[in-house]
């Protein structure tokens, strides 16, 4: 099965208080941040790698971004992608539509049975990109996939609904799936693996090579400014022994009508 996995590079925001908004209020300060593959995309990649390991075929990792973004493609190569392509275009943050246009154009130029995207991104969290790409490609899709089993010419997928209910589909290929976290456990990418992946092909293309013009990529979303959400009320620390604090907490919850 030929697979394309779309990935995005995002800042590692595990320690929230290190995020600072720069004076322009149009971006965060990136100087001291470290970046990584978007969490959901890593699950999508792992899904793709496992599928490839089971069925053979090719796996191409793709992304749209400036040169620094090569590092996430290297990691994808280390995870098991055969090759990687970056479309060299610094997209306006949050403009999923333009990114979808680029990815759709790129995908059309490649062999594929299945396109896998993360269900959403950790930074802007739009959750739309995969679905838009599917529509543009005119292929069926399923979003928030938590289970996947390949069959002849199709895949059986499980989708997560509210309250833990699963929905199962069989989808004809080619198709696009957006992958939910928890579908698998993305493997660890060793530094040795990344070093070895330096030998694999990492191709850079311009939007022009895909027949895309600046007008076609004109942003449809405009970022006005970034700001932190207003702080909530102070948190309350409940002192005492575990028994005492449990009792206190119960009374607070009770008086709030929670139980």
């Amino acid at each position, binding site marked *: 099965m030929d697979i394309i996995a779309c990935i995005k590079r995002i800042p*590692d925001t*595990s*320690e929230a208080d*290190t995020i600072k908004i720069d004076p322009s209020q149009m971006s965060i300060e990136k100087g*001291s941040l*470290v970046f*990584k593959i978007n969490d959901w995309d890593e699950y999508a990649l792992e899904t793709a790698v496992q599928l490839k390991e089971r069925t053979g075929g090719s796996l191409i990792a793709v992304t749209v971004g400036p040169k620094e973004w090569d590092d996430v493609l290297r990691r994808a190569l280390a*995870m098991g992608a055969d090759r990687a392509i970056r479309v060299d275009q610094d997209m306006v943050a949050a403009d999923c539509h333009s990114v979808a246009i680029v990815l759709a154009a790129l995908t059309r130029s490649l062999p594929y049975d299945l396109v896998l995207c993360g269900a959403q991104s950790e930074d802007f969290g739009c959750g739309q990109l995969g679905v838009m790409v599917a529509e543009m490609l005119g292929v069926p899709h399923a979003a928030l996939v938590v289970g996947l089993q390949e069959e002849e010419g199709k895949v059986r997928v499980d989708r997560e609904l509210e309250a833990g209910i699963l929905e199962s589909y069989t989808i004809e290929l080619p198709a696009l799936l957006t992958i939910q976290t928890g579908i698998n*456990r993305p*493997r*660890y*990418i*060793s*530094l*040795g*693996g990344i*070093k070895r992946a330096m030998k694999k092909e990492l191709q850079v293309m311009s939007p022009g090579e895909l027949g895309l013009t600046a007008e076609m990529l004109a942003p449809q979303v405009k970022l006005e400014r970034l700001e932190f959400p207003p702080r909530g009320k102070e948190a309350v620390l409940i002192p005492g022994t575990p028994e005492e604090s449990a009792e206190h907490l119960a009374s607070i919850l009770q008086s709030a009508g929670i139980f």
Partner: protein
Amino acid sequence: MTLAEYKYADTIHRCFRCGYCKFPVNWMDVNNCPAYARFRMETYSCGGRLWLTKAWLSNEIDWSEHLAQILYSCTACKNCEEKCPLRFNVDIFNMIQAARAEMVERGLVPAAVKEFLENVQRHGNPYGNAREGRGEWSQETGIEQYQGQDYLYYVGCVGSYDTRAQQTARTLGKVLLRSGVSFGVLGSEENCDGNEVNALGEETLFEMLAEENVRKFKDLGVTNIVTLSPHSYNAFKNDYAKYDGSFPVLHYTQLLRDLITDGKLDVSGGMNARVTYHDPCFLGRWNGEYDAPRQVLSAIPGIELVEMEKNRESTLCCGGGGGNFYTDFLGGSENSPARIRVREAATTGASVLAVACPNCMTMLEDAVKAEGLEDKLVVKDVSEIVGEVCGIG
């Protein structure tokens, strides 16, 4: 990798599983392998791990999360190497480490190990905390940035970020200031020493950290290093030479001993306490230093140093080595090694459990709470005891 390509293919089958590795030196129980003490299934004994490694590499069993946890439950305490009478004993931990390296290469590590290693890759520490916060522990202490002083005081990840261990790092810094030692720290420029990364089998990441650290130390003109953590001490002392970094390195207990002997550190103020001392594996079994911390404690008037039955070569590991202070495969039970250890400490009648390692500090202090021994036993670092004697808070 197959067994044939495995570095220890010629030796790993030589383990008979006689079980010597489970005992301390005096044979008093079979609980001196921390993982075996915790689970009491043969799989978790040293021999179990070796047999499973061989079985995995020769395709008798498949990789599983459980297998990985069994391999990563080893704390690198080297009790097995101390007890095993056979010639290959010097390589027992290496055999585990090499199997882990294979898991790392295949990406097949438990989630907690993955997190640990990714955090070090990205942030230079296992916690995933920001690099720029690494030096915050030393604010308002008067401790200087390193710029060619006699000693580089290397703190390590735990001392830099763990709230409790930060206190230790500060106290030691102040003790060194009081003794007139010329030293500096790297602050936010410090990076992980890689000792645990190495133990977890991420060889390339370790290599990168070692090379970067060596380069940095050389650029700064570092001549002597003193470490807070025995783990850092071990990496610098034994592993960095391979990366062209042979720096004279002391564990801080060795420096404090020398300072006391030379009359530069006055501990005559004394302290009235019954103290028992827990040997950190990376100072004791890995580097044979059992005396320096005891000499420091014995030099303090009023301290009655009592030994636990398992001491020196027989020490039961706190359970935090080999990354387990973070990955915690041995936690969650009254048989967690740290809890067994503090119960043993309590039976000595000591009111202070002295440690010389920030990992032991965090593990044992948590265990004291879990055992409800707070009224009887306080965990203090040797440097903190010295600090107290000198009136340094």
